[in-house]
């Protein structure tokens, strides 16, 4: 795999999907060859005062058109700046970074919560096995139609306006979903719930974690999570989310 270097790449499209959620396609030439589902890219702001790259997970990889899709939520001034990007604009980027999902199993359960949903799309596309896909939202939904091509989609909303009322675990139970592999990405409380569910039901699980990062390449030690074993690199009970992750097996980490 070639080394990800910082370069300027072109915006192909940047549209609002839902209030505060944006759909960005980038021209990614050499990036697409190496990119795997679950990996992320670091996007830089044009405003030089906002120094640090924003790590954003890869939602889709289009090898034919040499482009990648990122779906992100505006959460601060950096992502707000991204939301104003127009077709043809250039943006500095490093990627793909991190360890993505490992494709395995014969019956998969994909579980996404909120802005943790996008990275599961490329995974759903690449997984050839039988798939159930559970998507949890607060209220407004996005991307659910993109998933329907790749598996059975079940939705949970906190207010019950669409699908099961409650969270993703409620939707799994309500629909009696079973699997031999779980893939999940979402907020930490959701991942905790999924981890517990997977342990109780003896299902292998891959979880994609999130943390504030600085470098994104494994040097600054900002984005660590607690590990069950002493990590080979850090020599303490810490793993780097940007390097050994963001995807970990549930039994590798403590949430």
């Amino acid at each position: 795999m070639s080394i990800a270097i910082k370069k300027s790449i072109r915006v192909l499209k940047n549209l609002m999907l839902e209030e505060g959620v944006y759909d960005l396609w980038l021209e990614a030439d050499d990036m697409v060859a190496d990119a795997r589902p679950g990996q992320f890219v670091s996007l830089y702001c044009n405003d030089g005062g906002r120094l640090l790259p924003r790590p954003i997970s890869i939602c889709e990889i289009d090898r034919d058109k040499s482009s990648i899709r990122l779906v992100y939520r505006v959460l601060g001034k950096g992502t707000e700046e991204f939301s104003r990007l127009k077709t043809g604009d250039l943006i500095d980027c490093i990627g793909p970074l991190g360890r993505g999902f490992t494709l395995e199993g014969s019956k998969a359960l994909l579980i996404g919560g909120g802005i943790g949903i996008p990275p599961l799309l490329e995974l759903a596309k690449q997984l050839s096995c039988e798939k159930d896909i559970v998507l949890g939202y607060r209220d407004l939904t996005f991307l659910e139609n993109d998933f329907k091509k790749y598996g059975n989609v079940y939705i949970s909303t906190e207010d019950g306006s669409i699908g099961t009322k409650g969270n993703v675990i409620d939707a799994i139970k309500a629909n009696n979903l079973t699997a031999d592999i779980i893939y999940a990405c979402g907020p930490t409380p959701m991942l905790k719930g999924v981890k517990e569910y997977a342990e109780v039901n003896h299902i292998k699980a891959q979880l994609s974690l999130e943390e504030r990062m600085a470098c994104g390449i494994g040097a600054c030690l900002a984005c660590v999570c607690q590990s069950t074993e002493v990590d080979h690199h850090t020599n303490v009970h810490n793993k780097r989310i940007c390097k050994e992750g963001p995807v970990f097996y549930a039994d590798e980490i403590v949430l």
Partner: protein
Amino acid sequence: MNDMNMKVNIAGVSFKNPITTASGTFGSGMEYSDYVDLNRLGAVTTKGVSLVPWPGNPTPRVAETYGGMLNAIGLQNPGVDVFIKRDLPFLKSFDTRIIVNVVGKTEEEYCEVTERLSACDVDMLEINISCPNVKEGGIAFGQDPRRVEAITSQVKKYAKKPIIIKLSPNVTDIAETAKAAEAGGADAISLINTLTGMKIDIERRTFLLANKVGGLSGPAIKPIAVRMIYQAANAVTIPIIGMGGVMDGEDALELIMAGATMVAVGTANFINPRATEEVIDGIEAYMLRNNISDINDLIGCVSGG
């Protein structure tokens, strides 16, 4: 370019150029070896090494601020044994000097790590008495000139390599702590470490960093670094390694002209993994443009003014 001299000398150690890395921003060099030709650097300064492995602080450990960033990593490191066994041999395979940053919770720990590393093939030791993110050690030693002098002379007894005392900018008078390090027998000083800062998440109405307080670095602090290097250079005769917000060659030249013999690139590595090499290129381009044949002619060149 061949007749241009970039070599500098600190405490009898010669460096091929004045650029090194700021401790904690470059791992042990290994993390950047895919991005940077380590052979090009004057030296690699490693992340702080302690006697036993340190797990560091809870997350979130970083927060961006305009023109800078706060960090409270808490000196997570694999400990001196792993450093000597794994990281040092890796660094030795490159043609660059090695400066190892030393941390401890007590004076004894600083001395023990210093003693262990003195027995290894390293070029210099940088004693970190200025980390703002650990409860014990670190900055506690670096803010009182009497303690600076005491720990310097204590560590010096165990050091078979030249030592650099890394100073905190979180003091009223940097000249005083610089003089204290010199009086304690430091072979060089480095400054500035980060400035203590805080960021509040107004939506959650709480501190953004789990540690509440973090160290501010990045271009926002460069003017403070320039001022403090200038003041320290006028207070001591030992050489200075300057750091603080260097993003490019021109920034590095400011620190050199203020009185730094070497300059460390820190936060810039997080923003551009190739920053160190680009800083060297920038200095060379400046020298060529201005017909300067020896970098040493620029060190502290504003001091007389």
